[in-house]
């Protein structure tokens, strides 16, 4: 007679659940399900919703927009200096956005999966490193749409530098010290209500947007 889902399956599914809510969600699913089959069926519709909920709690649209602008600027500048013909080609500017999208996806997931109980100095950089890896991985699958290798290497290097600086200046809610275990979402609201991060972030965005706009205008003159 089966007394519950197997421990191997429990651990495998547990790895998919964000660390901040893994304990209680896995425990609830273990209590509700009598067999491995039932457990897997429930996990298939519970885990995606739990991930979405965690992403909503940990991501800040303004900070993500800043990260996106920084990464795009880095790839644009590298391509401008090293392989300018890409920018003039059809869909050239869209091709630049593909590694940026990969990088943002990795940043969002790294924030969602970070464990609020474990703090170490390199944690803000983990998302950036994973993001760079995903940006490179996206290029492998693109074929003719991939950026030239030299532009990709220099662009990714600059993007890493800019985005990690940005994330150290404006740490995401998941990386801030949490007092008395309050949800990351409250930390996010608190930081915004202080009126410190949002205006500063908007100024940075405006400056970068002006630089990119100037470069694009020069490009098509």
């Amino acid at each position: 007679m089966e007394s519950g889902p197997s421990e191997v399956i429990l651990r495998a599914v547990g790895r998919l659940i964000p660390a901040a809510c893994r304990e209680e969600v896995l425990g609830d699913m273990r209590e509700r399900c009598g067999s491995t089959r039932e457990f897997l069926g429930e996990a298939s519709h519970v885990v995606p919703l739990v991930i979405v909920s965690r992403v909503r709690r940990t991501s800040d649209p303004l900070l993500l927009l800043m990260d996106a602008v920084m990464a795009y600027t880095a790839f644009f500048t590298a391509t401008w200096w090293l392989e300018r013909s890409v920018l003039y080609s059809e869909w050239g500017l869209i091709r630049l956005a593909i590694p940026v999208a990969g990088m943002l996806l990795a940043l969002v997931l790294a924030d969602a999966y970070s464990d609020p109980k474990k703090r170490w100095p390199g944690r803000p950089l983990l998302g950036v490193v994973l993001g760079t890896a995903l940006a490179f991985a996206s290029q492998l699958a693109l074929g003719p749409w991939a950026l030239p290798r030299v532009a990709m290497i220099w662009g990714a290097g600059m993007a890493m530098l800019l985005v990690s600086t940005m994330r150290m200046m404006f740490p995401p809610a998941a990386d801030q010290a949490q007092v008395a275990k309050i949800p990351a979402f409250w930390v996010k609201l608190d930081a915004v209500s202080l009126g410190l991060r949002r205006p500063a972030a908007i100024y940075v965005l405006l400056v970068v947007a002006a630089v990119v706009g100037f470069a694009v205008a020069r490009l098509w003159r």
Partner: protein
Amino acid sequence: MAKSDALGQFEQLVLTAILSLRDNAYGVTIHEKVSELARPKTVSPGAVYITLDRLEDKGMLSSWLTDPTPERGGRAKRCYRLEALGERALQESAETAKRIWETVAEVLGSGRRPKWNPVRPK
């Protein structure tokens, strides 16, 4: 009531479940109670988790982890409690529902099942 304090129907169900479960409100029991309240609709446990997170972010709930138990494979439960803001929001929702019911009962006649009785044009 501020717009962010307004409760959706599912949020009302979750808050009602937590209110009625008192000290035993955690994922499994809340899902069971919400399923009972929402009958005949089926309720996904994932939807309950998302709603619990959202209500906690709004400050209507607070939560804490209990000690691990053997029936959960040595894992802890996250228990929930209604905060003053949640109680107030639920009370206002209940008052609105009561007013709706009183109006319906007044028009259709109290104590009997609402019947489809359109006025035919002459």
